[in-house]
C-alpha cells in the first residue's frame, strides 16, 4: 500500500515543479521530455525524483500500476536513505552511474542501462524498496487475484479448496 497520500507527497510536488519548469521551457519550443532527461532545467531534487521514478517503473513494469505507486516507491527509497545514512552514498552513486537521458529511454533501453547495476547496493536498495510497495499495492493484489491476509474472512476452510476443472488428463 502507498506509504502516504501521494497528493501531499513532497516528491510529487517536486516532480510537478520540475514538470512546470520543463513545461515553461517547452513553451519556448523545446520538448519537456528532453529537459527532464538532460536534467539541465530541473532542480536537482526533482531530477533525482524523476530518475528514481524511472528506475522503479523499469524494475516492475506492470501496466496495471499508476503513477501513485511509482511515487510511493520513490518515497520509500528516500525514507530508507533518511533512516539509514549508509544508504545515501550507494543511491547517489547508482543514480550517477545511469546514462544521461535515462528517464527518456524506452523500457528496453532502461533495462539495458540498469543491467550492469544488478547486485550493486543501489540496485538492492531500489529493488527491495520498490518490491515492498509494488507487491503490497491493492492494484497488484487485484491483478494477481490475491486476497492478501485470510484471517479477516476466517481462512479458506469453508470455501472450495480444490477447483481444477481446467486440468486435462488422468487424476487418479
Amino acid at each position: 500500500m502507498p506509504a502516504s497520500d501521494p497528493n501531499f507527497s513532497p516528491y510529487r510536488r517536486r516532480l510537478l515543479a520540475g514538470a512546470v519548469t520543463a513545461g515553461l521551457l517547452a513553451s519556448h519550443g523545446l520538448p519537456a521530455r528532453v529537459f527532464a532527461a538532460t536534467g539541465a532545467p530541473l532542480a536537482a531534487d526533482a531530477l533525482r525524483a524523476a530518475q528514481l521514478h524511472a528506475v522503479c517503473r523499469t524494475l516492475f513494469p506492470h501496466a496495471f500500476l499508476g503513477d501513485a505507486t511509482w511515487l510511493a516507491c520513490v518515497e520509500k527509497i528516500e525514507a530508507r536513505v533518511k533512516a539509514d545514512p549508509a544508504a545515501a552514498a550507494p543511491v547517489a552513486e547508482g543514480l550517477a552511474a545511469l546514462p544521461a537521458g535515462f528517464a527518456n529511454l524506452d523500457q528496453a533501453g532502461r533495462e539495458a542501462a540498469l543491467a550492469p547495476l544488478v547486485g550493486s547496493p543501489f540496485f538492492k536498495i531500489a529493488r527491495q524498496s520498490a518490491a515492498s510497495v509494488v507487491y503490497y499495492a491493492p492494484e497488484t493484489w487485484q491483478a494477481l487475484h490475491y486476497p492478501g491476509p485470510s484471517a479477516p474472512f476466517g481462512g479458506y476452510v469453508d470455501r472450495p479448496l480444490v477447483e481444477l476443472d481446467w486440468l486435462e488428463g488422468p487424476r487418479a
Partner: protein
Amino acid sequence: MSTKTFARDDDSVVVVIGSGAGGGTLSAELTRLGASVVCLEAGQPAIYEQNLPAFYARTRWSDPRGFDGDLYPDLPVLIAKAVGGTTNFWGGVSLRRQAHEMRSRTTYGALPGTSLVDWPITLEDLEPWYAQAEQRLGVSGLNGKPDIPDHNNSELLKIGARRRGYKKVSNGHLAINTVPHDGRPACRQMGFCTSGCVIGAKWSSTHAEIPRALATGRFELRQQCHATKIEHDAAGRVTGVVYLDAEGREQRQRARVVCVAANGIETPRLLLLSASGRFPQGLANGADQVGRHYMTDLVGRLIAVLPGEVHNYRGSTNSGLVADDMAHDPARGFSGGFLYVARGIQVPSWPNEIDPAGFGTEFAKLMEAYPNAVSAAVLGEDMPVADNRITLDGALRDAHGLPVAHVTKRYHANDLALMDYALKNGVEIFKSLGATFTLAKQSRTVIHNLGTCRMSADPADGVCDRFGRTHEVPNLFISDGSQFTSSAAAPPTLTIVTLALRQAAHIAEQLRTNAI
C-alpha cells in the same frame, strides 16, 4: 499465567537456554516431571501477522554473521529470535527419521570428504518417544486425527506425482490440528503457516509448550535474556549461566544442570564463547568437535506456471507429500534420500522466490503469472563434512560486543548430485500437468541448522552422548538439532521434540537419584 520466579543464586534449578522446539518441549516435560526450570530466551514474544516479509524482518535473528562458502551472502541463515524460537516459522511437516538414517556411516560407507558416523542410538530407541511426540503435537493423519484437506497446490503435486509413477503420495503428516487438540483450535486453512499461525492451530512451542510449562508453577521464562557464557567449577561441572537482561545488565543464574537449545548456530557459539582456563578451546570442546559437521538439510524450490489458476496461497502451506525418494537407493547416483512437499507462496514473497535480482518486462510477466503458479519444495539429506562449521568470527561483533557466529558451508558432491536429481525429476512432475514455465533451484538461505554438537559413541567423534549429555561436562546437555549425528530426508522438528522428551525423562531420573 504463572508468576513463579527463582532467585538467581538458587542452584537447584535446571537452566534451559532457548525456548523453541527443543528448549520449550524440554522445559514443559522437565517441569511436569517435578524439576524447576529457568528458561533464558534472547528474544521477545513474536507478534503474529499474515505478512511474511514484515514478520520475518521483526522476528528473525538479525545479528550479522560471518560467512564462507555456498550460502546466499545477503541472508545465509534464517532463524528466529523470539519466544518459541523457530517453531514460529516452521510449516509443521512431522515425519519420523528412517532406520538407515540412524546408521548413516554403515549404510553409506566411507564417502570421501564426509565425516559420517552412526548415531549412538537406533530408530528402535526413538520409536516410543516418536509415538509420544506425535500424540503431543496432534499430528494429522495419525492416531485418529483426520488428514489436512486437499487444496489446489497439494492436489496438483499429488496428481502430477501419480502421473509420473510415484506411489507414496499423500497429504503428509503435519503438526496442525485437523480437529481441536490440546486446548488449541482446528486449522482454518488460512495459509500463512510460516508467518506464525494466528489462531495457534499449528503446534509451536509458543502456543503449546511454554503455556504447559508455566501451568506447572515450576517454570520461569526470562525473555530478552541473552546467554553469553556458561560457567563451571574447579571440578569441571557447570555452575550457572551469565546473561545480559533486557536492560543490557549482566546477570548470573546459578544452576544444577544447564541445557543448551539455542539452534545449531547459536548453541556452538555459546560453548565457544564459554572458553576458560580449563576448557581453553571452548566448553565441551576438548576433541575440537564443537561447531563442526554443520548440516543444513538440502532445500530446493520448484515453481511452475500451469494452464489454469492454482491460487497456491490457499490452505496449509506445506501439505501434500511425495515420499518415494526418501529411501536410500545408490542406483540414483547418490547416498541418502529426499522428499517433495507442496509449498504455498504469498504475493509479497513471490518476487524473491522467483529471483531476488529479477526485474524488467520478462520478470513482470512472470510475476503476473502468479495466479497460475504451483509450488513445491525439495527437502533432502546433506552430508556432514568436518570443515563445514560454526566458529567465532574474527571481526564481526553483535550489539553486546561479542563475536558473532561465522558460518562455513560448502556443499559436498553427494549433496549436489542429490539436489540435481531431485530438481530434474521435480520439474517432470509439473511438466506432466502442462507447465508452460518451470523454475528449479537450490535454496541457499538455510533454515535447518544441525550437527554442530553432535551425538557420538566415541568422544573423539562428537560432543554429546546418547542422551545429549556432553562427553566432557557431566551436567551440561545439548537439547536442540545441534545434537543430530546426521541429517535426514525428514525435516528435523519432530525429531528435536522426540529427543527433548527422551532427554527430559533421563535428566529427571538423574536428578531424582542424585546422579547429577
